[in-house]
């Protein structure tokens, strides 16, 4: 079946069974450090720590980890272009040459805008590496199980569980339908392709719909309608992990903020 590489990693790494709370301390703690950092050094430190923890602790293959980070990193780098490039200052005469690094037509890159872009890029990549630490080590159903214990989130988490259960079958079906559309030349011209996409989106919704109805009937024999689906079991929380994790996060923060 069609897979998602992040999801596959989450199911196969060494930390999969650890309590979600343990890993959240580490990952969300590093995320907090990353977004509140005042210097780029902190951000770089977060990337290094997250990488070390992911590859040495959870034994995620280095190649996999790099590929995981590459996607958000490329997004971020593309995104910061929009920050770095500003409109040419109307009062260029007033700005010193040192402040304007580059101009082209109505656009310019200034020292201020470039600094802002750089700061954002580091913060975003550091934040992404912290979050990917959680995403790579924890299968979605475990996360949703933890979320369901937070007051007010139970219903949403439970629906999330159904989303996850149906996701892969639907991705697979969608890919198959698209493939057979292509076999009947459904993407030959742009207008033909638009019609095919419309039909594809419609069939996929019908598939999702009938899938849910059939699941409803299938489950009727297993339990009364509406009972909670529960959450998969994970290991109990161990302070032997939480304490060192908190220390790592604090150390990263302290070193980063005061270095």
């Amino acid at each position: 079946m069609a897979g998602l590489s992040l999801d596959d990693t989450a199911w196969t790494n060494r930390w999969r069974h650890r309590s979600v709370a343990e890993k959240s301390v580490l990952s969300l703690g590093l995320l907090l450090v990353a977004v509140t950092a005042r210097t780029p050094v902190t951000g770089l430190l977060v990337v290094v720590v997250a990488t070390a923890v992911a590859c040495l602790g959870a034994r995620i293959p280095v190649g996999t980890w790099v590929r995981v980070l590459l996607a958000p990193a490329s997004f971020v780098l593309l995104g910061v272009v929009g920050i770095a490039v500003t409109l040419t200052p109307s009062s260029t005469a007033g700005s010193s040459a040192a402040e304007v690094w580059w101009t082209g037509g109505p656009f310019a890159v200034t020292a201020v805008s470039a600094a802002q872009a750089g700061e954002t890029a580091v913060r975003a990549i550091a934040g992404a590496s912290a979050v990917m630490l959680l995403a790579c080590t924890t299968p979605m159903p475990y996360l949703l199980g933890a979320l369901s214990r937070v007051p007010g989130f139970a219903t949403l988490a439970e629906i999330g569980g159904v989303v996850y259960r149906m996701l892969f079958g639907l991705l697979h079906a969608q890919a198959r339908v698209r493939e057979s559309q292509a076999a009947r030349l459904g993407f030959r011209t742009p207008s033909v392709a638009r019609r095919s996409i419309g039909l594809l989106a419609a069939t996929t919704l019908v598939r999702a719909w009938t899938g849910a109805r059939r699941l409803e009937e299938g489950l009727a024999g297993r339990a009364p309608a509406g009972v909670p689906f529960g959450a998969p079991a994970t290991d109990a929380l161990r302070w032997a992990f939480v304490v060192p994790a908190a220390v790592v996060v604090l150390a990263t923060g302290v070193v980063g903020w005061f270095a």
Partner: protein
Amino acid sequence: MRALLAAAGVVVDHPGSPRVLDGLDLTLIAGRRLALLGANGAGKSTLLRCLSGALRPSSGAVLVDGEPLRHDRRGLARHRQTVQLVLQDPDDQIVASEVRHDVAYGPTNLGLDAAEVATRVDHALDALGIADLARRPVHHLSFGQRKRVALAGAVAMAPRVLLLDEPTAGLDPAGTVALLETIEVLEARGVTVALSTHDLDLAWRWADEVAVLVGGRAVVGDPGVLLADDDLLRQAALASPWQARVLRAAGAAIPTPRPRDAEDVVAALGIRESAIG
């Protein structure tokens, strides 16, 4: 001969189309293998859903140990612990994303304590030979493996009757053999198994009794008799299994017990190796 589960005059109507089941009678005897046969659309799945309590017949009754099933919350809750249905497509029945968690779904909702649920789940996974898959995500499994997970989910409810809708559909020959072995394990634990199938050869070899669905009713009898009855099979849009066809082509009667394998058939034909040129 204890009547464990029965359909008595079961009618299923969908408004605007011909009746799917039209006063059907059928009895499941404890420990006796029943195979349900019929063309596509003959009502096999509908009947199984009625027997499992998932579908309420328009009229007629489903009897458990002679008592009519009541389709209220309590009646259905009890029924689920007696009868479990396994659907053809495992994805219609698996709700959780991790095997163990899914198999535990039914027992957990019976209100059992955690230790009892764990025991039930372990037994079910063992019976299906998938203990090693317990912590695997369902979407990483093959079709055959998912079929076993769905079956384990039903077995974990510790039912007395297991109804299997087309259990061999989509399985290769090795998968079919493995399924039949699993059924024997379950039978040894006291479970009565009935299944629906298109595979006449499977019905001939496996069943103690067959029910052929024709015109919304069931003709029930010995496989050796019904599966050689051309008139009946023609009405049901079925064909006789090869064993019956070979014996007929040779002009031989079908002996009792009926010959199941190639060896038995050859023996029934009275052939000695030396007789062949």
